């Protein structure tokens, strides 16, 4: 999807991150990948394998110990000041936890409109409000929600507010950490359709972290599988889902529950023993 000569929207090179107190275990251990313009890369893997930390390094929220992050060919691990801010605007993040990522003292209008104001996209107040309503409508919310606070929304509604907030500034790359995990299937369907549209119409690229492998299959043309801080498999959708190379990928695929009661019960016995859960951090 990378047009000749144009650098990919995102390139992560050899990212390493260790947290203090973890005695040499690396949360992120030499991770490299690219995301082309308008491309969706799925990032899946075990809980605690380093997906969120990788995303936070890419978004500039965590400083990697080593390695580089290039946005549109520009190294943001070194950039500063205005250049950094302009580049950063092109990358927005939707966090795993929609509750703690929304300031409880801001209304929906402020939460979604903030970026339009801060980045000088829509300085006029009335126009900003109109634009905010438009954005809210793309995620199934509306004008009647503008003056409410996060507290009074359901889990799925809050996640949609977070998505609207990220989309408001018109990013080229959206990093989504479990963006649809707390959504019921009908809203999830709506958000997934929206992501597909944004990719097609605006060329929005996605780095999409999710545990739901069916959702990743639906949305992402390429998939990276993480285990123990490393990318253990990276390939096209068909290859990863139909001919996975790494045993961990196979184990993941085998554990996907299917919406069929009889099939689930039949499988339960085979699936049950997952004793002494193999741990990502303790293997080194």
């Amino acid at each position, binding site marked *: 999807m990378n047009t000749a000569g144009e650098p990919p929207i995102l390139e992560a090179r050899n990212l390493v991150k260790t947290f203090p107190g973890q005695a040499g275990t690396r949360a992120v251990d030499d991770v490299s990948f690219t995301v082309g313009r308008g491309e969706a890369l799925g990032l*899946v893997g075990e809980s605690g394998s380093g997906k969120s930390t990788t995303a936070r390094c890419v978004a500039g929220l965590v400083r990697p110990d080593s390695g580089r992050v290039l946005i549109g060919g520009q190294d943001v691990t070194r950039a500063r000041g205005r250049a950094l801010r302009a580049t950063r605007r092109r990358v927005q993040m939707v966090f795993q936890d929609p509750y703690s990522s929304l300031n409880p003292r801001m209304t929906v209008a402020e939460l979604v409109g903030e970026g339009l104001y801060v980045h000088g996209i829509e300085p006029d107040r009335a126009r900003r409000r109109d634009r905010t309503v438009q954005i809210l409508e793309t995620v199934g919310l509306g004008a*009647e929600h503008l003056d409410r606070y996060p507290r009074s929304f359901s889990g799925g509604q809050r996640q949609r507010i977070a998505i609207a907030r990220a989309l408001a500034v018109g990013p080229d790359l959206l990093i989504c950490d479990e963006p649809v995990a707390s*959504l019921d299937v009908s809203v999830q369907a709506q958000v997934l359709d929206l992501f597909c549209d944004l990719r097609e119409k605006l060329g929005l690229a996605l780095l999409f972290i999710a*545990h739901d492998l*069916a959702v990743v299959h639906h949305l992402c043309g390429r998939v990276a599988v993480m285990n123990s801080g490393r990318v253990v498999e990276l390939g096209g959708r068909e290859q990863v889902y139909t001919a996975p190379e790494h045993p961990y990928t196979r184990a993941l695929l085998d554990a*996907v529950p299917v*919406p069929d009661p009889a099939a689930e*019960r039949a499988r339960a016995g085979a699936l049950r023993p997952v004793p002494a859960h193999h*741990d990502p951090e303790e293997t080194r």
Partner: protein
Amino acid sequence: MSAHPTQGSPLLDIRGLTVSYPTPQGPAQVVRGVDLAVAPGERVALVGESGSGKSVTARSVLRLDPDARTGGRILLEGEDVLEMTPREVRRVRGARAGLVFQDPLASLNPVKTVGWQITQPLRIRGVGRREARRRAVDLLGRLGVADPDRRFDDHPHQFSGGMRQRVVIAIAVIAEPRLLIADEPTTALDVRVQAQVLELMEDLARERGMAVLLITHDLGIVAGFARRVAVMRHGLIVEEADVDRLYASPSHPYTRSLLDAVPRIGDAPGRRLGAPVPATTEGEAL
């Protein structure tokens, strides 16, 4: 109109529950007459669209919403929770009914260690420090947290999303409540850990007779875990059935559309899931 397919008296019996919140435009009713019963050891799933009132219903059982105006009855082992004094309600929480909140981080205390928080329900019931620690470490291990003994003294921000979610589950079940209400308890877990957590809940239901009300939007999980399913929409239960029947022949069109909106790995990627977007008109429980 509440159907009780299970024999014996239910552990939890919700009858005609209504919940409304005060708004500047007057009270907004978000739960509009819910009937739902769960027997000891029974596993019931509550599904339904975003904003339909699932979490509000769950929180009502433990009276966790100071703003909420409630009506109807919530019988827990025959006693009406809505009639209890605040002190009696506090005694219900933890031992008789545990709740796993939908928001794992917000329900954890950022300044206390993970271990402190998990052992609290035992400590306030007089269990000694070392015994409480032993049981908490054991439970974390069963929930698939690696090296639980060392991670016991970590703070929540040092845990990944899925690890925090398991801490919240541990807090809810450590005192072995008679009823567990789990609101989207596995959304942050990979499918293997998810299977492990569901297995633990199932074991507690089987061995200890713990009743489980599982709120989830994942119809794959429902298929494997629940025996009975209630479908909620706009503050009402629109369909309630045995799990096999519900999946084979859903009688309510909304249930049908729910089942159709699930992406499956065999499908063509990018196919329009085209779920009808619920109207977001004011006054309606979105």
